[in-house]
């Protein structure tokens, strides 16, 4: 029993570009995995309830409640990114584009046309799906690092366009007047974000357990073999990107509704959005269901807190820390928190067997 395990571990190390949480073992459904699927659903629900309890406990403390709420939102965004970035292995640094589509849809339709923000959110999601569909063909001609470059450049172009046009509010961005904000209570926003996180998690689980998840992993692991087996890589990746883009746009729209203003440089910021969301997924564990959520819940509030605590230090100190964290995690902590936990559990189980 120990020998094949060692071989598998060795193989995993050699193909260790962002590891998937799905090991080959999981592809064979067994009675044990059906049971564990049911307990897994139960533990997801339990974790969400625990987060709700945290929100209730923090009620009254505006600062920490705000940190927790935004942490939950970014956990959801990392979860959404992970669908194409983790399961599909398509390393987008341009999710700020979809985030921005959602944010701008909500702001502009609300402020200029008096729409309900919830309806505007739906429009943003649909627009984001269309944008993702249009971009998929040229972008997926690129692979690996070049896909990352392409998406990064795309986000820069989206930024340039958003400050160029007048109807988008130009460089000043858009502010939603206070009277037009429907919800101003941080606790309610926390609950809304939690609902959004639950939705992202559910989509993510359905993708992984469904046909699409296997296709995505197959395309990531071996492009040629996957297409030979009948999974069109372009179609598979496009569907993954669209799902991820729709969720990211909803997250962007919700975030702007919560903030009440839209500042183009922060919406399209590479450091705060484009690279930050993948970083959350990486720290938690890329390609797993739980990892990105864990990364978002831990890292986003932590960095916001430290940014506030160390406001006296020279500008850029907290950002420099994020840079160091990226390097260290990429070098020494590639499996992320959840990857490490999983490895530990697997070893323990194997020993018991």
């Amino acid at each position, binding site marked *: 029993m120990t020998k094949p395990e060692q071989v598998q571990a060795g193989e995993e190390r050699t193909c260790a570009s962002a590891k998937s949480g799905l090991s080959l073992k999981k592809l064979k459904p067994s009675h044990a995995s059906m049971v564990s699927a049911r307990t897994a659903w139960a533990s997801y629900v339990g974790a969400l309830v625990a987060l709700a309890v945290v929100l209730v406990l923090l009620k009254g403390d505006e600062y920490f409640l705000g940190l927790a709420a935004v942490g939950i939102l970014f956990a959801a965004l990392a979860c959404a990114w992970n669908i194409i970035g983790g399961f599909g292995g398509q390393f987008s640094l341009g999710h700020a584009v979809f985030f921005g589509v959602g944010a701008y849809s909500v702001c502009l339709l609300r402020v200029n046309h008096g729409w309900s923000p919830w309806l505007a959110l739906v429009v943003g999601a649909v627009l984001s799906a269309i944008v993702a569909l249009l971009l998929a063909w040229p972008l997926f001609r690129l692979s690996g690092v070049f896909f990352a470059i392409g998406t990064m*450049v795309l986000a820069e172009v989206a930024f340039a366009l958003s400050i160029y046009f007048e109807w988008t509010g130009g460089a000043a961005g858009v502010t939603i007047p206070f009277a037009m904000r429907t919800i101003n209570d941080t606790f309610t926003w926390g609950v809304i974000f939690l609902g959004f996180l639950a939705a992202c998690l559910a989509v993510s689980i359905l993708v992984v357990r469904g046909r699409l998840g296997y296709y995505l992993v197959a395309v990531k692991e071996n492009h040629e073999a996957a297409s030979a087996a009948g999974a069109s890589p372009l179609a598979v990746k496009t569907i993954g990107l669209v799902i991820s883009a729709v969720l990211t746009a909803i997250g962007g729209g919700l975030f702007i509704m919560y903030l009440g203003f839209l500042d183009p440089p922060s919406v399209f910021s590479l450091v705060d959005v484009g690279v930050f969301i993948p970083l959350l997924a990486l720290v938690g564990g890329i390609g797993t269901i739980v990892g990105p959520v864990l990364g978002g819940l831990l890292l986003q509030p932590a960095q916001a807190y430290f940014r506030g605590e160390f406001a006296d230090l*020279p500008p850029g100190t907290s950002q420099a820390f994020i840079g160091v964290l990226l390097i260290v995690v990429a070098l020494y902590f590639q499996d992320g928190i959840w990857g490490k936990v999983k490895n530990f559990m697997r070893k323990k189980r194997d020993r018991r067997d």
Partner: protein
Amino acid sequence: MDLPIVVVAGLFTGGIYALVAVGLNLVFGVIRVVNFAHGEFVMFGMYGAYVASLWWGLGPYISSWLIVVPVTFVLGVLIQKFVIQPLLRQHLMQIFATFGLLILFQNIALAATRGETLTVKSSSSSSSIEVFGLSLDVTRLIVLIVAVIFTGAIMLFLRTSIYGVAMRAVSQDRATATLMGINVNRTYAVVFGASTAIAAFAGALISPAYSVTPTIGLSFALPAFAVVILGGLGSVGGSLVGGLIVGVVEALSGYYIDPALKQAVWFVLFLAVLIIRPAGLFGQRGDVEMD
């Protein structure tokens, strides 16, 4: 009537892009690594020129050779050794790690300068010469000439010198190159150091013409990415031609459409090339795939 002026301005900008892209392309061609922090070395070069002129009164054309090139070469070698080398076959982690370097370097510069905009004074700052009735900015003219000479020299070096042949051997087949007695890791270190030094050198040369800010790196790195993909991955000559094309297109669109949209214009160009010829204008098919 204005067309020649705009084209010349574009060629000048293109010279800068080419010089920045050459190093990026060299690293990609030999090590198969995309260094997202490449633009930050341009920024370092600019700050280096500033510090050298402030502290020791050295002009950028002297300090670039004396200080900027040696320091950034060593920095590049260290980065290759401690960050790139452990991640040689892990392309996705390379993105994270080099992006981490980008964020780190930008914010070190931000913390050190507190976001102040600095300018280097040089005798070439405001001087211009007249050729065929066109007034040419000397700083930028020098950069263009240097870019042409550098790319020519690198191409010659790769074609004829024994070290150049070794580098090409490493880029084509790492394992066989090792068997032939080439020290692959040392080759990587030298190539990476050279690429960062060239970028910083470019930064020092253009410092009299640009104001330095901590985030200026990306405004050279992004076009350089476009140049590398346009000119063909791993093709040094393609970088020069690609750089000049991107520079001219940017100048023309800036003049005839709107300067604010120049990025969007070269992005469309970049997408068009990818769709028509994924390997770039001078690249070979298959170069785009990594390992």
